[in-house]
């Protein structure tokens, strides 16, 4: 959440940071701002999306700039609370991502000393504090200030007396440095600067970085200059435009066959287990994730348990990290528990903390992540990298499918390794997984009929999603997608739980989306659908191709292509995404930027 970029070099800086900032806008869109140095510092900031700020940007020849896009934590979205913040004399400008936990104490003390504040943001204490300590050296001033602040942060600072210098530091939140030729970059997300350079430095916590156009210096917490490593990352041509699609979300939904295909390579060619350090007998598995990734984890539970007979538990990261040690895992060291973390961005604060907690407790940790080189990939024992490419729509779509795919592949290999499935079965599974992209293409080609179904939901105040077994998580995901982009209240339930409460809420005005695939729970879900229909609830059923019974018992029926029920979550997920998209589209909501939400939740 929140995005930061900075540039120092020999070109006009304002345009460069503006373009980079736009790539980060999905991280927050409450307000944005840019600080440049002309004769003195010039700060332009504005509430609302970046275009609001862009409209007011003055002409600039500065070759130094820092910029910020904000998702509000402390203080309402407003011009005053937008970043960059400055001290009262406007000599220092600061952008900050994260939260300063003790800002009230610092603010009180500074106010007693006579310093003035302009906003209600926690971040404003930073420029004031740094200017208090500034004696001609920005690095030292930042270092002294760090001694007083508590919290998580990425900070970048410029000063009007240093026309060529940006000083930055991170603690717990992301920061990458891009090395150029007579120019250097910094950003909170690698995608923002990949257009300009592939030479990347990943600073560690509390290292202070001093960037000038010609040099990069890294200081440790005692201000000794230390060596740093530059890594070369793969070139990535960013696709910033929607290429004919109306929203990024729709574009990303249609990119899913390709995302699955691209991610497949690493999963199937060789057994990934060796690379992940998993060649030992695993006693239990815990999957830990947030939001949509958590739902992918739940699907993973059903698959892995079926394929390996190893017990799997799934937890929310925010719960796992504060739970008693080895909750749900445990056991002897000879059969160490495996913890699988799932985070699209690799920066999710709770998941990161969960990874640390798991490692402390002696678990083997692996992560399923979409951003190479992200923080979590550096802290765990093994990494499965999904290759969805950058996801800009805030509602996760393609990353959900590639995460599920990674879990299926993991399950197959673990199953083969433990002897629960044999070689022909392994080959069969691999072949089935290879066909998923074409199966979901068939759902995508049916998008018009999903659009028609969506019109059934637009006037509803509340919608229920039900499923059983491996498709129970899909009911949860369907509800999440619908509520986050269309703002219609939606809940997902295991179909068997209906009688234990939610049935009381059903009526003619409360449609239900039921998932009925032909696995061992089929007859039960059909009964559930009939129970609901008996109460005059409109039921939209998702069934496999040619299922006449499902058609008969429900009001509307959507057919997914012929597929093994175990693999049905893939086409069903695509259906859920398109359904929510079209409902939201009809309601006219901001689909790519749902209110109050942002991507990469790097705060707790």
């Amino acid at each position, binding site marked *: 959440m929140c995005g930061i970029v900075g540039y120092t070099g020999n070109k006009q800086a304002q345009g460069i940071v503006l373009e980079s900032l736009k790539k980060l806008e999905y991280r927050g869109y409450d307000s944005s701002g840019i600080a440049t140095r002309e004769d003195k510092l010039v700060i332009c900031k504005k509430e609302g999306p970046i275009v609001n700020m862009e409209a007011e940007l003055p002409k600039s020849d500065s070759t130094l700039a820092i910029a910020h896009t904000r998702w509000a934590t402390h203080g309402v979205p407003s011009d005053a609370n937008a970043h960059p913040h400055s001290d009262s004399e406007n000599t220092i400008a600061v952008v900050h991502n994260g939260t300063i936990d003790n800002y009230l104490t610092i603010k009180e003390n500074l106010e007693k000393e006579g310093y003035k504040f302009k906003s209600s943001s926690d971040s404003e204490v930073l420029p004031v504090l740094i200017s208090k300590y500034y004696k001609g050296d920005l690095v030292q001033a930042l270092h002294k200030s760090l001694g007083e602040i508590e919290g998580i942060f990425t900070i970048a600072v410029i000063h009007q007396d240093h026309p060529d210098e940006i000083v930055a530091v991170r603690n717990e939140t992301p920061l990458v440095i891009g090395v150029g030729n007579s120019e250097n970059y910094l950003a909170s997300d690698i995608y923002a600067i990949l257009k300009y350079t592939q030479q990347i430095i990943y600073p560690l916590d509390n290292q202070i970085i001093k960037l000038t156009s010609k040099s990069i210096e890294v200081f440790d917490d005692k201000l000794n200059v230390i060596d740093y490593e530059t890594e070369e990352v793969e070139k990535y041509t960013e696709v910033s435009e*929607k290429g004919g699609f109306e929203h990024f979300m729709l574009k990303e939904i249609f990119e899913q066959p390709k995302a699955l295909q691209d991610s497949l390579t690493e999963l199937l060619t060789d057994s990934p287990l060796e690379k992940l350090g998993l060649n030992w007998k695993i006693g239990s598995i815990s999957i830990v994730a947030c939001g949509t990734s958590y739902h992918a984890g739940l699907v993973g539970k059903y698959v892995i348990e079926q394929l390996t007979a190893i017990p799997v538990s799934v937890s929310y990261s925010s719960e796992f990290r504060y739970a008693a040690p080895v909750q749900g895992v445990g056991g002897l060291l000879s059969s160490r528990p495996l913890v699988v973390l799932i985070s699209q961005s690799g920066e999710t604060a709770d998941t990161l903390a969960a990874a640390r907690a798991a490692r402390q407790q002696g678990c083997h940790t692996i992560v399923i992540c979409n951003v190479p080189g992200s923080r979590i990939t550096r802290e765990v024992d093994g990494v499965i990298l999904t290759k969805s490419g950058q996801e800009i729509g805030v509602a996760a779509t393609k990353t959900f499918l590639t995460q599920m795919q990674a879990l299926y592949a993991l399950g197959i290999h673990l199953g083969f390794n433990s002897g629960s499935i044999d070689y022909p079965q392994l080959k069969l599974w691999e072949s089935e997984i290879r066909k998923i992209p074409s199966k979901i293409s*068939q759902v995508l080609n049916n998008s018009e009929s999903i659009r028609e179904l969506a019109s059934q939901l637009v006037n509803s105040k509340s919608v229920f999603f039900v499923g059983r077994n491996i498709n129970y998580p899909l009911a949860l995901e369907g509800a999440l997608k619908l509520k986050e982009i269309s703002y219609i209240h939606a809940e997902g339930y295991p179909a068997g739980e209906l009688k234990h409460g939610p049935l009381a809420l059903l009526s003619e005005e409360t449609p239900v989306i039921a998932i009925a695939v032909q696995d061992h729970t089929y007859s039960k879900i059909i009964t559930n659908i009939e129970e609901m229909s008996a109460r005059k609830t409109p039921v939209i059923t998702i069934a496999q191709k040619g299922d006449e019974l499902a058609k008969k018992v429900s009001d509307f029926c959507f057919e997914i292509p012929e597929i093994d029920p175990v693999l049905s979550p893939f086409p069903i997920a695509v259906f859920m995404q398109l359904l929510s998209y079209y409902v939201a589209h009809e309601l006219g909501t901001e689909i790519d930027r749902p209110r109050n939400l942002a991507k990469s939740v790097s705060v707790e």
Partner: protein
Amino acid sequence: MQAIILTAGEGARLSGWTTNRPKGMISLGNRPILDYLVRGITESGIKEINMVVGYGKNSVMSYFGDGTHFNCKINYLFQDERTGTIEALKIGLDGIRDEFILVPGDNFVSSNAFKNLRKFGTNILLSGQAERWSKWGEIEAIGGKAKITFENPDAYGRIHFTGIMKINKSLALRLIELSGSHLGEALQALGSEYPFEVVKADYWHNIVYPWDLISGNSMALRDNLICKNGKIEANVSIKGDVSIGKGTIIRSGTYLKGPLSIGDNCDIGPNSVIGSSTSIGDNTTIDAFTEIVDCIIMKNCDIGSYCSLKGSVIGEDNILGSHCIAVPSNQNIMYLGQEFSISNRGAMVGDGCRIGSRAVLEGGSILLSNATIGDGEFYNAVFQGDSI
């Protein structure tokens, strides 16, 4: 200069392979036909393309995106009703400033043809040597005037208009004014009064019928982008230009002969023979002891062991059992109410078919999408599967 690509049509004569995409998205040499066109256009220095999409538009838009990966800017314009090429041109003219190259999206043409078009002045028609009669008509340049005729249906080896031309906006508007829905006819009417120049392409193939795919494929493999990313086990022989995608495994004892393009994540062998003039799509598995020559095998297929496939097209998502045979022969077939003499072609199998073990598909036979052939059956040019 700009370009307009017309790719809104369904391609009904290739319906077995176009259930999910327009004809231009069918892969030859493992890349969609449109991919060759877009690359050819951008290599000639044109950086802005208007793409008129309609049928299966999402597959085009997801593949090309905003054009960044192809080093150009692609604008999408929508022709949702099938109202002909003149209407498509009208839609495609949006944002066109002056001179542009107009490209119907079902042409397979040498990429330097676009460079040649750019070299000369305005009002140029691109011609090419035809495999057979084409809907764009025969073309002759008589006394500086292009003459387009549609009369001679027996036109093998003659010079035909490809449908690709360089014109300016005012001429395009003039074409639109003429009545009719087909560009070729409008041009015929105009050709006698306008001074068109005619430039010939090095090679060109108009992809209309299933049997065009095989010859188009071997043509496409001339532009084979050689890359070897897969894993190649010991004792694999590789001769000629062979491209192997990432994640693919070539198992021991396999013999690969170029020109050959194998996609990503395939699993081939052991002891199979593949090539030459063959494309294998992504995610396809080919089991032991199978021989595949002069074929297009599209994405996501499973081919059993001991199969022999020659001169054949196998669409996406096909499953073939073991000991399947499809080898070329000569045959006269009825296709879409017309009789065709098919020479030296194997079977042409649409998307999503299931072919049992020991099945024999006679040369020249066509299976439409989602057909099933049982174990040990003999299939001979009688259509099965989803109707046209």
